[in-house]
């Protein structure tokens, strides 16, 4: 096994077995894990406690049953899965759960979960009128409450020094992942769509400093290889997430290289850093939310997502954009007609596929992707 294969295998193992990653971490450190609900949370704060931040992004192929008590069938697919797993006690071992509530379904789920576990669910609000300085001050107050609750639930004091250290670790991880995105685009023969996703997914279940070290090593190994011409097509993908691996395997089968993404689970997490400055860490973390762009749950009155995607296509010389539409995700659906029109005006080829975590058959996605490749 080559060094590249060995690193990828290690990251895939973590991505596929979050429970094991959590158990290993507990055994190693004596500390537990804190759940991080989609889409954005001040994860650095959890890292500063010494607990392992664990991303909660649903599961694939699980039949929804218990969640039907609370959610209608026409609710966002990922939230249905999370609620089903929560009802089954899959997250009971988490010491706390951090909840941002930028959409209606997240609001409802947060309250349902809080009803069952008032002593571990920490809910906070991102201000949506983000242009104002008052928004930063509001979010600092929210983060102060999050910090106080984390300290109370975990019994750990979060010092400014620890927080600054965590911010630096997260900034480095984000920078390394941005470099990884470029490397994956240059070497699709080496980093498949499945591999690329695993590298992103593993960062949800590992301490970021460990993840950074592995990805740096991976980048160095890959970059030592010669860049080969790609005889397939290149695409930019957008949406909440693009899973499961069966769908990504279809991308690989039809030689659709993902040269950049705008997925909430992937590049949106690494888009904005917490900047240096004279202000305290909570203020700078709040400011990062103000700087966030191109996301359906971060209000943008100018609707810049289309332009951002068009720029990504130009920068990466991609052939097309593939929209991974999370089933019944209102914020994503509302953005779609806006950027679809911009794509049409600019002549950018595009395809929408649906992401539904409950399904186990992917024939329809295969037909769409095959047709799209034939069309390109």
């Amino acid at each position: 096994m080559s060094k590249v294969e060995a690193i990828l295998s290690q990251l895939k193992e973590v991505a596929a077995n979050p429970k094991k990653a959590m158990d290993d971490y507990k055994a190693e450190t004596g500390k537990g894990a804190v759940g991080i609900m989609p889409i954005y949370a001040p994860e650095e704060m959890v890292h500063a406690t010494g607990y392992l931040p664990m991303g909660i992004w649903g599961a694939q192929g699980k039949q929804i049953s218990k969640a039907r008590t609370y959610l209608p069938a026409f609710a966002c697919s990922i939230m249905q899965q999370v609620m089903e797993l929560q009802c089954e006690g899959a997250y009971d071992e988490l010491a706390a759960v951090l909840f941002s509530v930028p959409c209606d379904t997240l609001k409802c789920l947060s309250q349902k979960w809080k009803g069952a576990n008032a002593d571990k669910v920490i809910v906070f609000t991102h201000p949506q009128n983000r242009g104002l300085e008052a928004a930063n001050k509001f979010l600092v107050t929210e983060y102060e409450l999050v910090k106080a609750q984390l300290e109370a639930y975990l019994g750990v004091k979060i010092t400014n020094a620890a927080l600054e250290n965590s911010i630096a670790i997260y900034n480095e991880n984000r920078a390394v992942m941005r470099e990884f995105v470029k490397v994956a685009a240059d070497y699709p023969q080496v980093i498949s769509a499945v591999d690329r996703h695993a590298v992103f997914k593993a960062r949800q279940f590992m301490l970021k400093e460990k993840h950074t070290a592995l990805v740096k090593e991976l980048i160095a190994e890959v970059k030592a290889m010669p860049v080969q011409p790609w005889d397939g097509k290149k695409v930019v993908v957008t949406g909440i997430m693009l899973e499961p691996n069966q769908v990504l395997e279809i991308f690989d089968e039809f030689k659709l290289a993902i040269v950049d993404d705008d997925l909430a689970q992937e590049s949106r997490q690494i888009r904005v850093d917490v900047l240096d400055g004279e202000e305290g860490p909570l203020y700078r973390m709040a400011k990062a939310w103000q700087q966030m762009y191109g996301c359906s749950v971060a209000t943008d009155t100018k609707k810049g997502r289309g332009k951002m995607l068009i720029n990504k296509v130009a920068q990466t010389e991609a052939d097309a954009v593939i929209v991974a539409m999370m089933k019944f995700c209102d914020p994503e659906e509302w953005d779609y007609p806006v950027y679809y029109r911009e794509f049409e005006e600019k002549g950018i080829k595009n395809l929408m596929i649906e992401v539904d975590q409950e399904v186990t058959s992917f024939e329809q996605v295969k037909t769409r992707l095959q047709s799209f490749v034939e069309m390109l």
Partner: protein
Amino acid sequence: MYTMGIDVGSASSKVVILKDGKDVVASEVVQVGTGSTGPKKAIEAAFEASGLKQEDIAFTVATGYGRFSLEADKQFSEISCHAKGIFFLVPTARTIIDIGGQDAKAIRLDNKGGIKQFFMNDKCAAGTGRFIEVMARVLETTLDEMATLDELATETAPISSTCTVFAESEVISQLSKGTSRNNIAKGVHMSVASRACGLAYRGGLEHDVVFTGGVAKNAGVVRAVSSVLKTDVIVAPNPQTTGALGAALFAYEAANKK
């Protein structure tokens, strides 16, 4: 040179044999689809109709839901094949509405027959042939009779297009209220048309609009599609076999490249 296109759908199997990429020498439909004896029977029927044998066929392309389930020289998606077949038959086609047994598609074409954009229904039977099949059973009629009932309707019974199971209970409720079967049949067709036309609106509508797929044989749905889109629609000749025709055309191009 003879080339063959096989469209293995969810509800039926279609085979077209072409001579020199332009003359249809066989066009056969068997009303069972993937996973059945349908594809084999359709191929046998096409050979019998044309008097040809397997060794006479230079190239075979398979398409449709079951395209990977049988041996062929190449597989193309049904979207590409329907576009190819329709443009061959109707060169002025710019929007295709294809309603098959278990899916519905809207395809936009450029003036060279290239696909500009396409939209497909999600994993749901509403807006497909299966929806009409289920409703026909509740109405104690056949698929063929649905168009006749529709023609006799005096008004349209409202049937939602969200969910087949829910719509089925709506039909039962309409029957128990004494609504005429004719009006319900028309409502069913409007429901299918509104769902499928939603796909066409998503990609933008451009003339000429061509309606194809097995459901295009139902005159009631043709009227409904025309009414929802507020425009005339051209019904493809032999609408059930346009996918197989496109596959045979792709096969001809591939055979010439060999």
